């Protein structure tokens, strides 16, 4: 028996995948930004984004800013917050003999920021919060306007990051520190400042990702970013941890694969998470540096 293939359903599900993929991409971008400048995986990336998401909500709902302005303002506040976290909490343990110390600090931050967000932003007995929508309901060319808008935001983020990293002196310094910290100091770059900027950028990108995530679905609470973080890590691994383009493509692949699994693979109902991860395992077996990760070519 041949099942009639419902193309419209397939298309809708793919677009749903793109919408959540954009959010995974944002978090993956944030993870990659920090990984590239510091060689660290920041496990608190999702919760930092969560905190920023609450700030977006406060600015939009309590202060009454237009939601677009609130998201941008929250990204700016996130930038400052990320830079401060690097300077105050990460830097002091970074020089230690064991790089795992920093990982433990980011795990601690994961718990601390989540608890702090609950303490500050959630009143006892409160229902899930509703983030104002950035994009109107309805469809354009059969695609949800929200999905189109999310994709636009992601493209905008990528263009801005590309211009910053490739076309400015600050970007050159950031890439220099990622490439060779000691030589960076020797040419007179303040490497500490660059690490702060790297964390700040990551937090700003995360703030946007979190705010978008909160617009999906019916409401959000302090658990918003927990699965997103896992998918974000998956996306970063798929793309190769040092590639920004890889993070974007990885996020979209993970989002779409997840949406298809939910729709089409009934046998995995409830454990749909398996499929994106099987995919990642497969890719990493064939290409250990991820889809876009560089194989380091170095002659001595």
């Amino acid at each position, binding site marked *: 028996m041949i099942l009639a293939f419902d193309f419209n359903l397939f298309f809708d599900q793919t677009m749903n995948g793109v919408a959540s993929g954009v959010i995974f991409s944002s978090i993956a971008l944030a993870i990659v930004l920090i990984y590239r400048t510091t060689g660290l995986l920041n496990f608190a990336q999702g919760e930092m984004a969560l905190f920023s998401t609450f700030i977006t909500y406060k600015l939009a709902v309590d202060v009454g800013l237009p939601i677009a302005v609130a998201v941008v303002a929250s990204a700016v506040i996130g930038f400052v917050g990320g830079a401060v976290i690097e300077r105050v909490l990460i830097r002091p343990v970074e020089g230690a003999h064991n790089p795992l110390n920093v990982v433990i600090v980011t795990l601690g931050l994961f718990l601390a920021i989540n608890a702090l967000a609950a303490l500050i932003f959630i009143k006892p007995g409160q229902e899930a919060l509703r983030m104002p929508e950035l994009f109107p309901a309805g469809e354009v060319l059969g695609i949800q306007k929200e999905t189109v808008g999310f994709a636009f935001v992601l493209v905008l983020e990528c263009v801005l990051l590309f211009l910053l990293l490739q076309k400015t002196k600050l970007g050159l310094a950031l890439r220099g520190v990622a490439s060779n910290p000691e030589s960076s100091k020797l040419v007179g770059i303040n490497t500490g400042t660059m690490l702060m900027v790297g964390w700040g950028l990551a937090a700003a990108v995360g703030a946007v990702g979190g705010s978008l995530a909160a617009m999906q679905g019916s409401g959000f609470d302090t658990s918003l970013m927990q699965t997103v973080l896992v998918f974000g890590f998956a996306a970063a691994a798929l793309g190769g941890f040092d590639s920004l383009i890889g993070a974007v493509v990885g996020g979209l692949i993970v989002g779409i694969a997840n949406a298809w699994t939910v729709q089409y693979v009934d046998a995995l109902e409830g454990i749909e998470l398996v499929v994106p991860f099987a995919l990642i395992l497969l890719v990493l077996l064939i290409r250990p540096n991820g889809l876009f990760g560089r194989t380091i070519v170095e002659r*001595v």
Partner: protein
Amino acid sequence: MSLLELREVTGGYGPITVLHGLSIAVEEGEVGVVLGANGAGKTTTLRAICGMLGKVGGSVFFDDTDITKASTQSIAKAGIAHVPQGRGTFTDLTVEENLRIGAINRRDAGVAADIDQWYSVFPRLAERRKQMAGSMSGGEQQMLAIARALMSRPRLLLLDEPSLGLAPLITREVFEHLGAINRETGLAMLVVEQNATIALGIAHRGYVLETGSIVAAGDAQTLVADEGVRKAYLGF
């Protein structure tokens, strides 16, 4: 006063002292060479100058300013460029980006012209300007490292064993370039080397370093001529 002056400098790594009261001077316009075997403290000496050793005793003066406790970054800004051992290439930046990052603290409009100038001195770099710097040969990377350091328009160039890992022919070429740069621009240099013959060839003053102490010093000609020094320390 000398452009660079180390007075009774001590220092090392953690509990291990490598430098035992070192005094070296580099004059404006001159090339100084520090010769020594592996483990003599050559690299450590340069790291002490650049603020890359944790604790440094004694004092380091550059242009009449005490830089003993200054940060690596501010020493670079003050005009000391350092080509570290292993050349310090930014391997995953392009050749051209390596040159631009050398000039990262310059605010003047002459950066592009300087890049072109180094391309004409080192045509191999021009051919590979868009290539990842890490994919170049050791000799090319050494040329790139020198050009990168000079992009900052320094007043003093420190070079850590430029001959390391290079074929004799390439080593000679590197030193010919260094000698020419010194003659043409008057840029002062401090080179630490194992290869005594070739390094003294471009030097005005030489120092022989042994286990963290200067055991012989003098102008380059005298040092080469001194049979005792030659036999004991220079190995020729």
